[in-house]
């Protein structure tokens, strides 16, 4: 099958592309960032998804399936850039899918769509509206992109549409929101809070995309790891040390003492859980995570040790 992956050069995009290539598909990617050592069978065009050159790739390659991963999820990116890329880019991809006869559109979104709040149910199902935007406005463009992409379900009946809301991923690449949060040796937590996290191994995430490409489920689907676990366990298994900070002091502590920076709104995400119910995705695609519960953290720890080993003196 001919598959086009906008956003292919991101570390997670590469993992997905390699997985799809291994399934025997013909892969083309569009990205502003280069992927210089892409293996044979994967062609990458350096282009901005919103520009004419990207449309030319659709015209020439005529993809049957488009896996849209060209969204900016990094919360510290400038907000106007995020809006342009996440919304303008998604609009362009949808229009090209229509014009050039794609059969299946996959939008790779995030489970943070649901927001973290003290009074929300532990498990979120796909029919829930987004919460918590008032306290975390930086997420608005991602939520808008998710809802906008979802309009393809009825606006573009010519092709099938799969909107995925994936839980945090972790693995060798160390990329992603959780990977950035766990980058340093010390990881801040809120004293007296230990929310549940679902962490999907990168290889399982890639398998989930491959299962979506195979089954072409039409609708909105949560994609999650086998079972949730406390943030303290995630930090410990990733070989990091958690630094519990009392809530009144956390804003002052972030970005100092070796702790990562976080927007204010993100604090709710280390205070309250966002756990998603992925039963419908599993039923539609037959997907089941292959890796053990703790393996995402162990893979991350092996590739990104908190204290890199010092080479022995010669």
């Amino acid at each position, binding site marked *: 099958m001919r598959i086009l992956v906008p956003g292919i050069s991101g570390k997670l995009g590469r993992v997905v592309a390699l997985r799809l290539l291994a399934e025997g598909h013909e892969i083309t990617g569009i990205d502003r960032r280069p992927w210089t050592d892409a293996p044979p069978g994967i062609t990458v065009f350096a282009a901005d998804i919103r520009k004419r050159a990207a449309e030319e790739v659709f015209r020439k390659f005529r993809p049957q399936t488009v896996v849209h991963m060209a969204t900016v999820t990094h919360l510290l990116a400038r907000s106007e850039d995020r809006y342009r890329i996440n919304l303008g880019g998604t609009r362009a991809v949808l229009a090209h899918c229509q014009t050039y006869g794609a059969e299946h559109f996959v939008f790779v979104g995030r489970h943070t769509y649901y927001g973290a709040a*003290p*009074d929300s*149910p*532990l498990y979120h199902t796909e029919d829930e509206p987004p919460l918590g935007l008032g306290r975390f406005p930086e997420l608005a463009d991602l939520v808008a992109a998710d809802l906008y992409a979802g309009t393809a379900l009825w606006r573009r009946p010519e092709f099938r549409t799969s909107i995925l809301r994936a839980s945090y991923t972790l693995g060798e690449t160390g990329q992603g929101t959780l990977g950035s949060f766990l980058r340093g040796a010390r990881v801040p937590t809120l*004293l007296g*809070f*230990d929310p549940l996290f679902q962490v999907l191994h990168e290889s399982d995430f890639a398998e989930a995309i491959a299962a979506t490409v195979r089954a072409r489920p039409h609708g909105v689907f949560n994609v999650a790891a086998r079972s949730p*676990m*406390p943030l303290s366990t995630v930090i410990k298994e990733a070989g990091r040390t958690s630094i519990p900070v009392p809530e009144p002091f956390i804003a002052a502590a972030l970005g100092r003492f070796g702790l990562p920076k976080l927007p204010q709104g993100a604090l709710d995400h280390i205070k309250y859980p966002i756990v998603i119910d992925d039963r419908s995705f599993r039923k539609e695609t037959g997907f089941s995570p292959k890796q053990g*519960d703790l393996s995402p953290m162990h893979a991350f720890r092996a590739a990104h040790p908190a204290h890199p080993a010092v080479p022995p003196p010669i």
Partner: protein
Amino acid sequence: MPFLASSEALSRAARLDVSWNEAGVDPFGVSREHVARLMTILDVFSRRYFDLEVHGIKHVPDRGRCMIVGNHSGGFALDGAMVLASLFFRKDPPRLAQGMVEKFLNKLPFANLWANRAGQFTGLPEHAERLLDEERALLVFPEGAKGTEKLFKNRYDLLEFGTGFVRLAIAKKAPIVPFGFLGGGEAVPTIRNAYTLGKLLGVPYVPVTPWGLPIPLPVHLDLLFGEPLFFEGTGNEDDEYIRECVAKVKASIRKILDDGIARRSGR
């Protein structure tokens, strides 16, 4: 051995009909070690501090979904804690009763952890449904938060019951096991509730006792379970039918309480 957990509590926690993942938590984040810790503390209170007597525990099914429904007895949720301890220590195989707690608890540091890791979640219909789907024992106080605010003189009264729990029990085909709890009012004899102080502390209220603080007295407590009730239907019946079922549950709890009062006065 984990800090604060007795070996009996640990072995009973391991026998719970729950699937634990590699991190030792279930799909709801309930932690095996944490359950053992909490139960160890509750066991000390139920056996050593209070003198808890449990009757009719055989009415609680050994496994499978069920709803344990009873009265609040005033003060604070001592009743819920004693039901948890009873199902865990005085039943074989042990069961984990999972209560529906007030929303404020999730905002409190540490308190949210102690509740959630031991399987006590915010009282949302979504939680109740999911727990029953997972064949758990759901602990329900249909009087709601108002029930814990009962003053000493009203300790054996039953307030108005909500109806949602019966609809859910019918829809999920779960038996309702009624219970009556007596002695909570004597342990924390509330003369009034301090709402403003509660607001300052981030809780709904603070019960005021004749000695000021709501420190419970080491009194005799009685927990009596009645025969399970089953109601036929789909859960989409008219309010009239649901109210009839609720009245039957309430009457059953009233009867258990009256028996308990007679038993206590004969002591």
